């Protein structure tokens, strides 16, 4: 099996065996949405516990029970913001995941919003440009922290512009970093959301995972997706039900706050079990472990001849470097050693076509990191050699024939 330093939103974490043991139980695996609460208390209580966990992570009081995945959650936040502000202009940081930006754009064509992008400076969102871009027509400002380049954004500072103009501040985040980073809610976010895969879910070539979506009290009746609520039964017993169904398509139809029906309940359960397994202390410790191993990896790679940091902003678990050799060819060479060195930033950022995004998890040992550094160094050296040869005889490199993704 390949040793992977690929991240870009989905990460190769260790998932404890109890996650499978619990999610594979028929009682969780085979029922549908808990429309009949009397016989669905298990699933409903899991939703309630999950909502509590996500609310704790993000520092926002209201969480739903999960959406499809990250990028479509961003698009749903846009729809909510339009309803909440009666405005239709989005200001989006270029640090937001490219898939999120593209999905938001796709949806915007439908519900009729305009998307304005703000660039990066030194790896983080250009604060001045952002402030300039936000105006009285702006429905929401979209940030991501850590952003796609792994850089931790100063959400609080950047968010000021949004507050000033009455726009909602939407922050996409990596849940695994929230044991370390200030919760978006504390930094002024109105909505915090993101891709849930790092919590208890397999890579599965990209899905199924889930999206989490948290907001302020003010938005509770505009939330997308299922929400479990605590209540009592006729005998006064504590119980849980689907709350605020009056937001939903099956009740409100064309007036619903979102069109989602089947979501990702089982994946949210996996996340809850993983979080319970990590626990309050373990979750923070894992965050610290990621920060330290990532700092180590960043240093090791920066020391490699032909590798330099793409930015030196603070990072938690992922960072970007520039390679002094064609990234695709270097990736190919390193892959021959059973290592996926990372994500080629050129896929999404023409300005970073020499960029490589490297992700660290607790499964990536210091020894593997050392091997990556060594392999990268060797590959770059080899490519430089090949280049020289190239220029001599203009023979095309077979390794350059690659199916681009």
């Amino acid at each position, binding site marked *: 099996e390949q040793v992977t330093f690929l991240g870009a939103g989905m990460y190769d974490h260790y998932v404890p065996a109890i996650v499978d043991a619990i999610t594979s139980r028929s009682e969780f695996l085979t029922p549908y949405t808990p429309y009949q609460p009397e016989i669905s208390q298990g699933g409903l209580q899991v939703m309630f516990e999950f909502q509590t966990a996500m609310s704790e992570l993000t520092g926002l009081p209201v969480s739903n029970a999960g959406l499809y995945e990250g990028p479509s959650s961003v698009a749903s936040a846009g729809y909510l913001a339009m309803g909440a502000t009666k405005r239709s202009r989005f200001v989006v940081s270029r640090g937001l995941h490219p898939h999120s930006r593209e999905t938001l754009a796709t949806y915007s064509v439908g519900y009729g919003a305009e998307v304005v992008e703000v660039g990066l400076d030194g790896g983080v969102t250009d604060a001045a440009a952002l402030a300039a871009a936000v105006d009285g027509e702006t429905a929401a400002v979209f940030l991501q922290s850590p952003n796609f380049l792994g850089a931790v954004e100063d959400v609080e500072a950047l968010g000021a512009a949004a507050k000033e103009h009455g726009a909602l501040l939407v922050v996409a985040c990596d849940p695994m970093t929230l044991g370390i980073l200030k919760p978006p809610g504390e930094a002024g976010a109105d909505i915090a959301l993101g891709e849930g895969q790092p919590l208890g879910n397999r890579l599965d070539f990209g899905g199924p995972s889930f999206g989490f979506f948290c907001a302020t009290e003010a938005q509770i009746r505009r939330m997308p997706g299922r929400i479990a609520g605590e*209540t009592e039964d006729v005998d006064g017993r504590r119980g849980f039900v689907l709350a605020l*169904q009056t937001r939903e398509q099956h009740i409100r139809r064309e007036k*619903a706050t979102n069109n989602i029906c089947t979501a990702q309940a089982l994946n949210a359960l996996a996340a809850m079990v993983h979080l319970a397994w990590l*626990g309050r202390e373990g979750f923070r410790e894992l965050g610290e472990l990621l920060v330290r191993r990532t700092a180590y990896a960043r240093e090791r790679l920066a020391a490699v001849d032909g590798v330099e940091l793409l930015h030196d902003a603070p990072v938690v678990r992922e960072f970007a470097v520039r390679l002094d050799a064609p990234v695709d060819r270097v990736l190919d060479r390193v892959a021959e050693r059973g290592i996926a060195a990372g994500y080629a930033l050129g896929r999404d950022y023409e300005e970073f076509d020499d960029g490589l995004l490297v992700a660290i998890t607790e499964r990536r040992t210091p020894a593997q990191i050392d091997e990556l550094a060594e392999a990268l160094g060797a590959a770059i050296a080899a490519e430089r050699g090949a280049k020289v040869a190239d220029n001599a005889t203009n023979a095309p490199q077979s390794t350059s024939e690659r199916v681009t993704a």
Partner: protein
Amino acid sequence: MTLAEAPMQRERATTIYEKSKVGRRAAVLPDAGVPETPIEDLIPANLLRGEPPNLPEIAEPEIVRHYNRLSRRNFDLDSGFYPLGSCTMKHNPRLNERVAALPGHARLHPAQDPRRAQGALELMWLLQESLAEICGLPSVSLQPSAGSHGELAGLLLTRAYHADRNEVRTKVLAPDTSHGTNPASVTMAGYEVVKVATNQRGGVDMDDLRARIAEDPDQIACLMLTNPNTLGLFDENIEEIAALIHAAGGTLYYDGANLNAIMGRTRPGDMGFDIVHLNLHKSFSQPHGGGGPGAGPIAVSERIEPFLPRPQVVRREGSGGPGPGFDLDFDRPRSIGRLRGFQGNFGVFVRSYAYILSLGSDGLAETSETAVLNANYLKARLAAGRAGERLPVAFDRHCMHEFVLSGRPMKNELGLATLDLAKRLLDFGFHPPTVYFPLLVDEALMVEPTETETKESLDAFADAIEEILTEAEADPELARNAPYSTPVRRLDEVRATRRPVVRQAFGAGGGDGGAAAETDFDDATSPADSDA
């Protein structure tokens, strides 16, 4: 403790947070194995978190017990008959779980170089081909995450298609029987819904349809149809309907939630549909998971193909390696773009493709035939008994894979609401049918048995209905106060909407659990209403 009290009733709901104790834990993490630099030296203090989040503090044995116990507070498909109309609660073969869990699938990173993900891409391509064949349409995108996501995709495709022809259209037609996601998707896609009436036979009212079109032909962007529709009835005028919509220049959208009625027997493409979504978690046995995950692939006609989402899985002849290669094609200039991250719910694709391979084309046809047979058998069983009078079928025709009963006589004559019947069914060990949907049927009960149920299950269900109606004739209170044997009994859903408590309160910091101000629409509709 009363002797009678069922153990689960005795056991009051306790959350995992309430079970946690400071200092307990399950996870033991590896050493970082690198310098223990203070975090503050690596990340500025103002960006750091103060207190860690209040996650549970609990060891593995109690985590396992907690969730095992919770699981027993669920009724699931493997506990018994689950005729939840419109949801196709068919058996989930465990073989599919096994193949989906193979490391080559489960541990594959979504950003893996396609040249090193050929197996996964080939599976996706083969699934696309199979679904295209099943739908009778040339092209498929697997990207949408569920049915409603597919609907949105279909509407965005319609918009792109018209825009490409420099047309701007604003209206989407949908029958009054349509599923809630249809109108919700229409609004989300920036269109206006125009309701079309239902005729005496439960199909689209052709006069009304013509009238709606006539009002403003060149504003008609699309007609969204479910066929068989949510009454479980196949629309006899489908070809004429298609002709009318196409003549008006609109697209015809097929809500495939009911595909289980027609697989291998007829194809939406042959009926004239331009865009189809399928629910892999319904027709193709992906487990429902308590509300997902699912997947909602779309199949489209040639004229829609150019606008499909990016990326598309494609097969390339002789791309370097021996034989054809599979790849992700991003180079689609007229595409509507992405609907989500990466390539879709791949794990669901694996299960669904395994399901298709296990059945083969004959098996798929047999699946639909049996689903329709089961529905008609149960419909007949019910018509014969007390249900025949108290719970008449809403539209008395041969049904497809499901049928809809009306509880109106039961309500008028016995004072029993459909909800009461549903709750009483819980005591008999059945999951109730979908209730109060479709909206045009008064006190509706929507029954979908699926092909994987035995005659014994169908008979037992019919007998239970008969018994409940019989006991209600003697004492309607019995059902009005049901259920009796469940962990909790009727729950206060209005309160949960009026004053929602949506998270655990932790006293300090935890807030009051998110009680929110009431709003005008909070009980516009009784939360008791629920559907698929």
